[in-house]
C-alpha cells in the first residue's frame, strides 16, 4: 500500500513537471499574443514565487540598490528576487546555452533574466535563446518610445545594431565619458580630440591607457578612435551597417586610420617606454590606476561615475569629467533579457516591469548613479522632474555638451572584427596589412 502511494506520488510529481513545462510554453505564447491579462501574469508570478536575475556584480552601489530597493519592492508583489552576481555576463549566457543544449526548455532552466547588451545579446539572438517579444507588452512599456518612425526609438529597437524584437527591455542608458583629476592636470592641457591627446602624451608620456579589448569598455574606446579617424569624415555612420552589408574590404579601409593612430600612441601609453604598454583588464583596474595617479585620464561608461565617486569619497576632490573625443562620445543602452528557458517566466516579467517603473529608475539613479533607461519625453512632467531631482549630477560638463557630442554604438557584427583586428595589429604587433588582418578575422568568424 505504502509502496503504491510512493510510486504514485513519484509519477505524479514527474507528470506535474512535464505539465508545467507545457503550461509555461502556453503561457508564453498567450502573453505574446496578448491573450493573457497582466493580472493573470501577476497571479502566476506569485505562484512561481521567485526570480533569478543574473547580473555583473562588480559595483557595490548597484548591489546595494538591488538589495535595499529591488528585493523589497518585488517582495510586495509576492516574488522573491534572487540577485545572482556574476563576474562576466558571458557566464550567464554560457549557462543558458548549455541548459538549452541539454534539452531544458521554458520553465526548466535556471536563469530568469540577464543584464546584457551588445555581443552577448547578439549571441543569444543568434542561438535562438530568448523567450520572445515581451518588452513592449508590459504595463510600464509606456515609458519607452517604441514607434520606429521616431528616430529617438533607435536605442529601444536596436542593441548595437541588432534588432531586439522586444525580447529585451532597456534598463539603463550610458555614455562613454572620461574623467580627469584637475589637481594634477591644468584645465588648458585637458585634451578634447585624439590629436590633442597625442600632443599631451608626447609632453607627459605614460600618463594614459585604456581598458584592454576584448572587454567591451576597451572595445568602445577603439570604436571611438575609429569613428574619429574615419577617412570619409562620416564618423559613426557607416558602422551602423552589418558586416554583410559593409563587406570586409570596406571595413578595413574605414578602420585603418584609427588603428594606425592607436599603434602610434602605444609607446606613449602607461608602461610604453619599456616597450610593453599596459592595458588594464577591466574598469576597476583602470579606476585603480587613475586614483593612484598612474594615469591622468580614465575613460569608461558612467555618466554619473564621478559624481557618485565624489559623494562616496572614493574620487579625489579635483575629479571632473570632460568632453573627449569631440563628437564621438558613444552612447548606448543596456537591457534585461528573458532567456528562452527561464524557469519563472511570469515572475521574470513582473521583475522586468518593476525595473521599467519610474520609481525603480529614480532610486537606481540616485543610489547607484545608473542613468535612466526610460525615455523622459514619454513620462509625465511630474515623473520627469522626479528623475531630474534624483540625478547625482554631472561634474565639469553639461547635459547639452554631452548631447552635442553623442555617437551611436557600432553594429555588433563589426565589433568582433574590430576587436580581432586590435588584438592582431596592436597587441601582437602583426606586420600584416590591416586589410589582410580584417579578411582573416572575417573568414574566422564564419
Amino acid at each position, binding site marked *: 500500500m505504502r509502496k503504491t502511494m510512493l510510486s504514485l506520488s513519484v509519477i505524479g510529481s514527474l507528470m506535474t513537471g512535464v505539465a508545467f513545462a507545457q503550461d509555461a510554453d502556453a503561457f508564453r505564447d498567450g502573453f505574446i499574443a496578448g491573450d493573457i491579462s497582466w493580472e493573470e501574469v501577476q497571479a502566476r508570478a506569485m505562484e512561481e514565487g521567485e526570480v533569478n536575475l543574473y547580473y555583473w556584480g562588480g559595483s557595490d552601489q548597484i548591489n546595494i540598490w538591488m538589495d535595499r530597493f529591488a528585493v523589497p519592492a518585488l517582495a510586495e508583489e509576492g516574488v522573491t528576487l534572487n540577485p545572482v552576481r556574476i563576474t562576466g555576463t558571458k557566464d550567464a549566457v554560457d549557462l543558458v546555452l548549455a541548459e538549452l543544449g541539454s534539452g531544458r526548455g521554458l520553465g526548466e532552466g535556471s536563469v530568469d533574466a540577464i543584464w546584457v547588451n551588445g555581443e552577448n545579446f547578439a549571441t543569444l539572438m543568434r542561438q535562438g535563446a530568448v523567450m520572445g517579444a515581451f518588452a513592449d507588452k508590459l504595463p510600464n512599456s509606456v515609458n519607452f518610445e517604441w514607434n520606429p518612425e521616431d528616430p529617438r526609438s533607435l536605442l529601444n529597437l536596436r542593441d548595437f545594431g541588432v534588432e531586439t524584437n522586444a525580447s529585451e527591455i532597456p534598463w539603463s542608458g550610458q555614455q562613454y565619458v572620461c574623467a580627469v583629476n584637475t589637481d594634477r592636470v591644468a584645465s588648458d592641457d585637458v585634451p578634447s580630440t585624439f590629436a590633442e591627446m597625442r600632443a599631451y602624451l608626447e609632453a607627459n608620456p605614460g600618463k594614459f591607457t585604456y581598458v584592454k579589448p576584448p572587454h567591451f569598455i576597451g572595445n568602445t574606446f577603439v570604436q571611438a578612435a575609429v569613428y574619429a579617424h574615419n577617412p570619409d569624415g562620416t564618423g559613426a555612420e557607416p558602422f551602423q551597417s552589418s558586416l554583410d552589408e559593409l563587406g570586409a574590404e570596406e571595413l578595413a579601409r574605414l578602420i585603418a586610420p584609427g588603428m594606425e593612430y592607436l599603434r602610434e600612441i602605444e609607446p606613449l601609453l602607461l608602461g610604453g617606454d*619599456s616597450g610593453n604598454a599596459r592595458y588594464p583588464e577591466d574598469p576597476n583596474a583602470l579606476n585603480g590606476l587613475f586614483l593612484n*595617479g*598612474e594615469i591622468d585620464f580614465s575613460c569608461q561608461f558612467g555618466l554619473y561615475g564621478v559624481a557618485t565617486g565624489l559623494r562616496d569619497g572614493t574620487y579625489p576632490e579635483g575629479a571632473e569629467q570632460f568632453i573627449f573625443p569631440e563628437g564621438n562620445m558613444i552612447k548606448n543602452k543596456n537591457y534585461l533579457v528573458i532567456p528562452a528557458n527561464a524557469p519563472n517566466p511570469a515572475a521574470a516579467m513582473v521583475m522586468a516591469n518593476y525595473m521599467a517603473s519610474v520609481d525603480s529608475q529614480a532610486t537606481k539613479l540616485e543610489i547607484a548613479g545608473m542613468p535612466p533607461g526610460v525615455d523622459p519625453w514619454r513620462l509625465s512632467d511630474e515623473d520627469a522632474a522626479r528623475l531630474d531631482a534624483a540625478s547625482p549630477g554631472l561634474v565639469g560638463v553639461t547635459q547639452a555638451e554631452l548631447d552635442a557630442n553623442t555617437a551611436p554604438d557600432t553594429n555588433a557584427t563589426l565589433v*568582433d572584427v574590430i576587436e580581432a583586428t586590435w588584438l592582431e595589429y596592436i597587441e601582437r604587433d602583426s606586420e600584416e596589412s590591416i586589410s589582410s588582418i580584417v579578411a582573416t578575422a572575417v573568414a574566422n568568424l564564419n
Partner: protein
Amino acid sequence: MSKTKELARHKRDRTWMWIQLLPVMLVLTVLFGGALVLGVAQSLGFAPWFGVNTFPDFSYFGALWGDSFFWRSLGLTLYYAIAATLISLVMGVLLALALVRSFPSKSLYKYLYKLPLMIPYTVGIALAVIMLGNGGMLSRLMAFAGFIDDPSQFPQILKTHMGWGIIAVYVWKQTPFVALTIYAVLLGVGRETEEAAAILGANKRQVFFQVTLPQILPGIISSTLIIFAFNIGAFEAPFILGGGFPDTLPVVAWRYFNDADYTLQLQGMATVVSIALVAGVILYSYLAFYRRYERRIGRH
C-alpha cells in the same frame, strides 16, 4: 583441504584489495580520464554542441604551434615555474636544515613558518598587490618619505615580464611546503650519520653534499615535482600580477575560453592540452632521470 582454504583466503585478500583501490580508480578513470579524453577530442575539432565537428582536425594545434607567440608564452610559463621552484627549493632546504638544530624560540618559529601554507594563493596575490604595487604600501611610504614625488614613480615590480610578483607569491607559499617535506625526512633519518661523518673528519660541505643530500633527495624530488606541476598550470598569479601580452599559457587558454566567440573554445582546449603535454613530458623525464640515478646508486 588446507590448500582450498588458503586459496579462499587469497581470493578474499584480492577482493579486499580491489575494494580498497576502487574509489580512487573510479575517480581517476571516470572524472579525470573522461575529462582528458573529452579535452583531447575537443582540441581535435570535436564540439558538435557549438556546431563544430571536424574530428580529427589538427589545425587548432597547427595554428597554435605555428605562432611564435605560443613559444614566447611557453618560455614565460616555464621561466616562472622553474625560477620559483628553484628558489623555493634552496630556501626550503636551508630552512629545514636550520629547523633540525636547536635555537631559542624554535617552538614558536616552527609554527610561524607554516603560516603561508594555511593562507590561500589569492590572499598572497592580494598581499603582493597591496605591498608591492605602484599604488601599494611600499610606494606610498617611499613617496611619503620624499624619495619619490609620486607613488607612480616607484619602480615597477608587478605586471612586468620579469615576473617578480608571480615568483614572490609562489616562493612565499612554497618554501614552507618544501621545508615541511624535507624536515620530515630529516627527522626520519636522524642525525647519527652526519655526526659519524663529522667524527671521521668530513667538513661541513662534505657532510651536506655526501651525507645529508642523498638522504633528503627523495623529499626534494617529490616536493619539487608537486610545486612545479602546480606552477606550470597556475592561472591566478600570472593573470593578476603578470605583464600582459604575451601571457603565460594558462592565461592564454582562459582568454580563448572567455571570448564571446564560441568557436575559439576549441583553440583554448588545444592550449590546455599543450600545457598538459609539456608538463607531462617534463615531469616524466624528471622522474625517469631520478629513477635511473637511484638504480645507479643501488636504491630500488
